[in-house]
């Protein structure tokens, strides 16, 4: 909580009220520069794309730093030196569920069998949440769950659809809901940051005080209710208690410490029904949230599980899921390559944006790991072998990027997740079905 590189919220607000925010911020920034550079926060983002990847156009032919970019990886050109391409990781644990896409989404960040039969919600804590919990309380949002496209809530073959609606599970029975509207996401995250001209210090504080009082009242209702409930109902009510706590913690922080000093939220993104615009606005929100140190952990679904989106802006006429069942057809391959290239370009956009955000002696990207992946590798056969995997960022020096590496045969994707956890200072012996932590420097 006591980070020397932060300025008090009230100072920040007075600054903005006096319409001299930016010069003031820069001054404060330079005075704390050294202290800040010593402890830049580490961030984690997972970017998911649906329906797998056409690996034939994705995996580089050679390893090392001089590999040639494949057609689908071409958008990485400007940041090739910041990206680690990892091939030959499998995620076989996902199998054995009636819907292989859902199983793949649910195990993407757990590397464990997702249960989910018999309509049961019983997955595992995801790696993003493990990381988020290790830095709990240090930022206003413990983590953010975002998606550019709303997920299907029908046709889940008897598995709770929620297995495909989010990447993040706080624990075995708490899938974290995603925000799918970039404008709402922006407003939620920055509502207490971008203070309009009419909101003075006192008014905001008064509002926050009342909100906190409301939470006190409803929590005492929940306490009274709890005393009258049986075991099963109490477990359900626990969701309520933890939701109240989460908001309460944030409100307390809002009146105390300020937001990240370099934070310039800028204009609210326009409300849009256009998928591309919404996706881009979401990526902007993620970058801003990292830059402002509003959160350290984000999961983002660029497309919905088993997405049937029609990429007409790429001149693809069939729907994504349909095309992913390519059957070896050359037309489908062409379409998939176009879709995959666009997906990689979105990932590259985020990485490049973070790279251009100066922080300490480097950039925000230098202090981040951005993981790119999907629920399956080849969408036609729903394969869990050779999962498509990219990692952008150097994670404070924990990753030696700019290379293509092949994992030894039979390496589970869990080893990569455990390797990433090491970069965040986590010393857990195992994660999921890991056999060892993948060495990201060698």
């Amino acid at each position, binding site marked *: 909580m006591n980070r020397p590189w932060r300025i008090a919220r009230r100072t920040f607000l007075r600054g903005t009220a006096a319409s001299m925010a930016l010069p003031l911020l820069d001054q404060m920034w330079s005075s704390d520069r050294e202290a800040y550079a010593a402890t830049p926060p580490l961030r984690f983002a997972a970017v998911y794309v649906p329906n797998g990847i056409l690996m034939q156009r994705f995996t580089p032919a050679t390893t090392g730093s001089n590999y040639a970019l494949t057609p689908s990886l071409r958008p990485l050109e400007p940041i090739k030196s910041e990206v680690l391409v990892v091939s030959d990781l499998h995620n076989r644990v996902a*199998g*054995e569920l*009636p*819907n292989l896409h859902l199983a793949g989404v649910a195990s993407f960040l757990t590397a464990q*069998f997702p249960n989910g*039969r*018999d*309509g*049961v*919600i019983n997955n595992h804590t995801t790696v993003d949440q493990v990381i988020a919990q290790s830095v709990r309380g240090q930022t206003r949002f413990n983590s953010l769950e975002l998606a550019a496209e709303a997920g299907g*809530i*029908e*046709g*889940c*073959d*008897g598995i*709770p*659809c*929620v297995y495909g*609606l989010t990447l993040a599970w706080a624990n075995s029975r*708490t*899938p*974290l*809901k*995603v925000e799918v*509207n970039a404008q709402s996401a922006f407003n939620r995250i920055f509502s207490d940051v971008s203070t309009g001209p009419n909101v003075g210090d006192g008014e905001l504080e008064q509002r926050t005080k*009342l*909100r906190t*009082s*409301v939470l*006190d*009242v409803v929590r005492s*209702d929940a306490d*009274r*209710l709890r005393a009258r*409930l*049986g*075991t*099963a*109902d109490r*477990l*359900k*009510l626990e969701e*309520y208690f*933890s939701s*109240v706590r989460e*908001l309460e913690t944030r409100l307390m922080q809002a009146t105390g410490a300020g937001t990240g000093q370099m934070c310039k939220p800028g204009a609210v993104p326009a409300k849009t029904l256009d998928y591309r615009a919404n996706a881009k606005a979401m990526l902007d929100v993620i970058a801003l949230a990292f830059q402002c140190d509003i959160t350290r952990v984000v999961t983002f679904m660029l497309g919905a599980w088993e997405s*049937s989106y*029609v990429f*007409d802006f790429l001149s693809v*006429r069939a*729907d994504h899921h*349909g095309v992913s*069942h390519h*059957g*070896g*057809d050359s037309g*489908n391959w062409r379409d998939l390559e176009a879709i995959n290239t666009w997906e990689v370009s979105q990932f590259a956009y985020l990485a490049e944006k973070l790279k251009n955000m100066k922080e300490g002696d480097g950039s925000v990207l230098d202090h981040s790991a951005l993981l790119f992946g999907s629920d399956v590798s080849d969408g036609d*056969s729903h394969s*869990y072998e050779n999962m498509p995997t990219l990692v952008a960022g150097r994670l404070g020096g924990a990753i030696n990027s700019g290379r293509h590496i092949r994992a030894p045969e039979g390496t589970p994707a869990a080893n990569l997740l455990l390797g990433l956890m090491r970069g965040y200072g986590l010393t857990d012996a195992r994660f999921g079905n890991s056999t060892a932590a993948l060495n990201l420097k060698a």
Partner: protein
Amino acid sequence: MHHRLSRPAFVPVLLALMVGCQGRVSAPDGAESGDSAIAGAGGGEPGPLLGIPEGQTCAANVDPGRTVLRRLTADEYDNTLRDLLGDASTPGRGFPADDQSAADQLILTGLLFEKYETAASTVVDAVWQREMTSSKTEPHLLICKPSGGDTACARRLIKTFARKAFRRPVDDAELAAYYKLAESGDIVAGTKAAVRALLTSPFFLFRIEVPSAGDASKVSPLSPHELATRLSYALWASTPDARLDQLADSGTLAKSDVLQTEIRRMLADPKAEALATSFSARWLGFREVLSSRPDAQMFPEVTPALLASMALETERFMRELIVQDRPLIDLLDAEFTFADAGLAQHYGLPTAGLSEQALTRVDVAGQARRGILGHGSFLVSTSPPTRTSPVKRGKWVAGRLLCSAPPPPPPGEDIPSEAATQAKTERERLAIHRVKPQCAGCHELIDPIGLGLDRYDPVGKFRDEVKGQPIDDSGVMPDGTAFKGPNELATLLRKDRRFAECTAHHLLTWTLGRVPQGADGCLVGEVADTLVKPGAGISELWSTIVKSRAFTHRRGDVQGETP
């Protein structure tokens, strides 16, 4: 919930997957424990209870089951605000989607809680402003106007609204914290905050059924107010109205004849359209067509407005069945639908007298297009952009209408492309792949259904040929019955016991907030029997459900039971 299948136990299911869907054809014996139902489900699905003998009734002491705390869904939340505060802003549409109506799967997380908090603030400000400035109508909230040191008004306002928001009588003691909040500073800001708190309290956000004191595991009838709440959310997806409150207060609601009168009254109320807009929307998925994207070059005539008309067609159609108290089974072959001029033209129906803007009831007697199987919402949402998919249509019918969806293909199996098979028609292509035994088991259940509907093109129009090949829409169901075309298929589905049981399954899941299990088999059977009873309208169906022990009673926690 029950997590019965441990990992090793799953191996036999995998084997079943490999050999196809044989396990599906013979319905499991639902009268036994849920295990058999699950084993029969083939893909490890939650095992709808199927194959329940006709004409059986539930024993008087049947286990009524129990539902955990049930959070309001987004629709229920919006409807409830509408009825409590006259608010039409539908904030719930911006909430993260719920994928289930079973209570244990209605998860609450921080994000959703924040949405509730924000919505409460916005809605209270709006109603406050509305009722401060206008006194034309009966106030929803401002029965008096709090000001200055007048705490009596604030208390009265809070208590009156709490009674409605909590759906039960309240007393001053439990509202003490609310009164204190209202009086803590500026009385207006404080009272608004207190109302916001009422709308954020677990007593509002959850439908609460608390076991009476004593042995928490024993069966007890719902309290009158809990019963009113169940009834109201079952038929209206909203909060009880003044009359239900009154009947609950007087303790008369549970009487059989009172319930009967209320069911009829409630179904005649416009609020019962929730059964079309919420229940049916989920069951039949008719809004999925709104995100369908038929190929613009092949089908330039398909506009977003036309797709919207298709979704509305099914909604209005279901509403009509309810309003007219028709048998619900008529959804398969009713001789009417709803259309505007554009949709009628698209379907090839007469357009004379139809509005360009609004859908009206259209007679389709004697036409080949009847019932839900002829609705664009189903036909288009199950089609890829450029062609039909008999597999998807067949799976939709088998899954949604018969609760018998086969599992997806095992890893590594897929239908070969047209080019690979050099098949002239979709029928030939599917026949080639059904030669594989690992495909045949399941696809024999769904392919004939979809092929029987293939005279509807990807956008729901009639056609006689595809790429110069005439369409053969004949088929043979797994039990050997032959049929030709949509209307004969609808007739077969009407006689299929699985349709009646599956519909019962959907209705009971919606109503009880849990998936019917083991002991509910008899009720599934009773509801299915009512559904096929000649002349029995929707009100009789609801009567069977509402008077059941599962609806009127509740079991407490069994020791060690976890959700």
